[in-house]
């Protein structure tokens, strides 16, 4: 199947004339596709059919938590009353403010945090915000710290976010059991440590059993403990970062709270903190008094990390999801996510080096190339897991089925895993063959970047 580019269907040109502006203030013309509504409807319908999604089948990308996105949350986000401008007065936007206030509260309860900002527009933005808050906190204490300690197995964004905030990153090697190596941690921590960033369960699904001790160690050197919320779906109702000694955390609402991933975004990355850090959260925050909601700036705030209040519509959907599930639903989501991961791993002819895992596990493709195995899995009609990451697991296949799969689809998924592994090297190298496109030349794409239809035309 092949769908021409819009520009190949009809390239049109509109000259700028009869302009209400002097000529020197305008461009000459605009060249863009000029197509009618039926043509566009077909274009995008066909393209959509060339795209895998959660509603296509299993999507077990480790660390991505590809849950089902309830359609009613789209309805509520499409409510015309939600479509308001951010510069309205609080008096005329009480609905929006109330919803934000309550979502702050929901998230605080779920994470065991004292205060929450909803402003960061993605998980990585949440990390950056959290680290800025840590920095502001230390600075307010006249405490100049230069390092953020991060386990080697952490999400790449942790490193990038810490670096963006101006910190030197101290990488912590993984322990033999796949968890934090306490001796290495002890060695890494110092008076320079601004924070330790941790995911728990970690990126191979293991719970950091020494978390209380870890927290004490970090706090003992005056550092803060940061929780990367990417794996929160493992813990709902079973453990709260705040209770474990974490000072700062972000939530990935597009993971844990089922807002759609949208082909890459938008997500939202609210940040929760313990009360000591609250003064430093981004401005403004929503406050309530006598049933009246208002926006309030704090003097010690780090300021803003987004032009406005973050990804509003995403927050509405997250609120809707939490309001639908409540305690029982959220706890059950985690229970089933963990059960599914364990059940699936049990069906695989793969070694899973690290246990006991929770919502995700890292299988190893052993002497096969994990990326090739993944391509072959495409031919069996499923989306493969995250491959070759985390790096300390050789040929890792990081798999997170989430709670939405039933036993049959887990069995299908296991079949794809096992069948791909049983196929010949040649079959793996030639895979995929039953997909919209066959194996795509990514090296060539990077060597000779063609990033627009204009670039293709220039060929």
């Amino acid at each position: 199947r092949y769908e021409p580019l819009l520009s190949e269907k009809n390239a049109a040109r509109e000259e700028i004339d009869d302009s209400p502006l002097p000529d020197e203030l305008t461009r000459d013309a605009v060249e863009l596709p000029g197509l009618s509504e039926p043509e566009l409807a077909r274009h995008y319908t066909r393209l959509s059919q060339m795209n895998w999604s959660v509603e296509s089948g299993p999507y077990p990308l480790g660390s991505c938590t590809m849950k089902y996105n309830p359609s009613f949350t789209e309805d509520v986000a499409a409510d015309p009353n939600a479509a308001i401008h951010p510069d309205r007065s609080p008096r005329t936007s009480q609905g929006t403010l109330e919803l934000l206030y309550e979502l702050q509260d929901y998230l605080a309860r779920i994470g065991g945090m004292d205060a929450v900002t909803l402003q960061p527009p993605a998980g990585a933005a949440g990390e950056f915000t959290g680290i800025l808050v840590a920095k502001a906190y230390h600075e307010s204490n006249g405490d100049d710290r230069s390092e953020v300690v991060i386990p080697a197995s952490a999400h790449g964004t942790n490193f990038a976010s810490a670096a963006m905030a101006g910190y030197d990153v101290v990488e912590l090697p993984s322990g033999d059991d796949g968890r934090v190596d306490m001796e290495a941690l002890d060695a890494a921590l110092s008076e320079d440590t601004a924070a330790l960033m941790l995911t728990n369960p970690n990126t191979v699904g293991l719970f950091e059993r020494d978390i209380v001790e870890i927290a004490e160690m970090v706090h003992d050197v005056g550092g803060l403990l940061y929780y990367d919320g990417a794996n929160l779906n493992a813990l709902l109702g079973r453990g709260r970062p705040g209770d474990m000694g974490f000072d700062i955390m972000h939530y990935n609402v597009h993971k844990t709270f089922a807002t759609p991933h949208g082909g890459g975004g938008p997500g939202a990355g609210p940040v929760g903190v313990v009360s000591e850090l609250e003064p430093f959260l981004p401005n403004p925050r929503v406050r309530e008094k006598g049933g009246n909601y208002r926006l309030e700036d704090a003097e010690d705030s780090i300021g803003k990390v987004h032009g406005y209040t973050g990804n509003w519509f995403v927050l509405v959907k997250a609120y809707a999801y939490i309001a639908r599930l409540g305690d029982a639903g959220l706890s059950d989501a985690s229970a089933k996510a963990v059960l599914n991961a364990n059940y699936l791993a049990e069906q695989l002819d793969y070694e899973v080096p690290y246990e006991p895992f929770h919502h995700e596990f890292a299988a190893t493709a052993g002497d096969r190339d994990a990326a090739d195995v993944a391509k072959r899995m495409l031919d069996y009609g499923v989306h493969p897991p995250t491959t070759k990451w985390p790096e300390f697991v050789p040929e890792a296949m990081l798999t997170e089925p989430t709670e939405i799969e039933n036993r049959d689809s887990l069995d299908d998924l296991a079949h794809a895993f096992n069948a791909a592994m049983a196929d010949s090297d040649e079959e793996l190298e030639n895979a995929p063959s039953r997909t919209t496109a066959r194996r795509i030349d990514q090296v060539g794409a990077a060597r000779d970047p063609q990033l627009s239809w204009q670039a293709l035309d220039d060929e």
Partner: protein
Amino acid sequence: MTRGSPYAPHTEAETAAMLDAVGAADEESLFDIPEDVRFDGEFGLEERSERDATTLLSSTLAKNKKLTEFLGRGHHSHYVPSLVNDLSRRSEFLTSYTQYQPEITQGFLQVLFEYQSMLVELTGLPVANCSMYDAATALAEAARLSNRVRQASGHRILVPEILHDGKRSVLDNYVAGTDLTVETYPMDDGNVDVDALSDLADDEVSMVYAENPTVRGTIEERLTEIGELADEVDALFCLGTDIVALGLLQEPASVGADVVVGEAGALGMPNAYGMGLGLFATREEFLRQVPGRLVGASEDAGGKRAYTLTLQTREQHIRKERATSNICTNQAWVALRTAMHVAYLGPDGLVDLAKQCVTDAESLAAELSELRGVRAPVHDRHHFREFVVHTDQPAKAIASDLESEGFAVHVVSEHKLQVCVSDLNAPKVDQLVAAFEEVL
């Protein structure tokens, strides 16, 4: 109501069989969490039926007052055709993720490739990424880009003294971890004071940022000079704009822009309480320093054209702390909506819409100026969508009274309001003028 997640499909029998298969007595035993940090599961959050949850949300949102908004200043929207809502909601788009397996995600990749191409056309620059969070973070990323690409030792970022607070604050935060400093240059009757800017520019400047239209809606007249001025001191010229303005105003490449940032969500999204889509385009030579994702065309094993994410070695998941940005989850779905909206408009529709942004603002300003004690536009410039209004009476009181009449406008200062008109509120300008008359 069942106690449990309505989105977990397990029947009781299935759960039992699966527990059996993994050799676990119950679900709780699968959790390897020490007792001292175990949580009892009681958040105190109620569970609700779909209908009750919907009702809760809609009744909460109904507390937003119904207003006709004449608001802009960086967050704009236009009528979104039904087709955009309909097609963007298709689950294959909405519920997919980053295209790590391009062989089964050609659809979204092609849409993003088309989005990039549209921005290439509109900016005149050959490289556009496939989304940033919003205009503010795009500007901030541009500043960081300038820090990476400059050979010179420049560390000064020059920005207009009149700049949206959010943008300034985000910029400050994004450069806090670098040696960059942010300084302002003065404005002259709404636009850049080019002479003053010239005085400030030296070899220490890493980037000059200007906007067209400005936050007050004025259209810059001396962009080429600003571009040359930046060029002379080897600074990047970063131009802030929005996707509709690009359809009419001077092409950024033609005035020497090295980076274009701004809001693309002005098309494709309704008023979104500030949720946006950061556009980011730049020159070829900065390609490997660009933040955010890029989609490129390539070939598959059968020699057919195919699309894929490319140049990923810039990104955090590979380069970690040496990445060009920490951005991972982006605004892809908004970019899809924006691309659909642009495609829906076509070049004629886009140009017409942009022209209307000029003429509607002009005529509304003229109408308001007819009122006693009102002068608009304050700045003797051409305007795009919005303009500042001088009021003899206190601006805050007028805005408050207008609000009671059902209209929202910005208060800029003690005697200045700002009013923004677009196709959405244009049918109500007469009512706005009448309301002004009423409250004056």
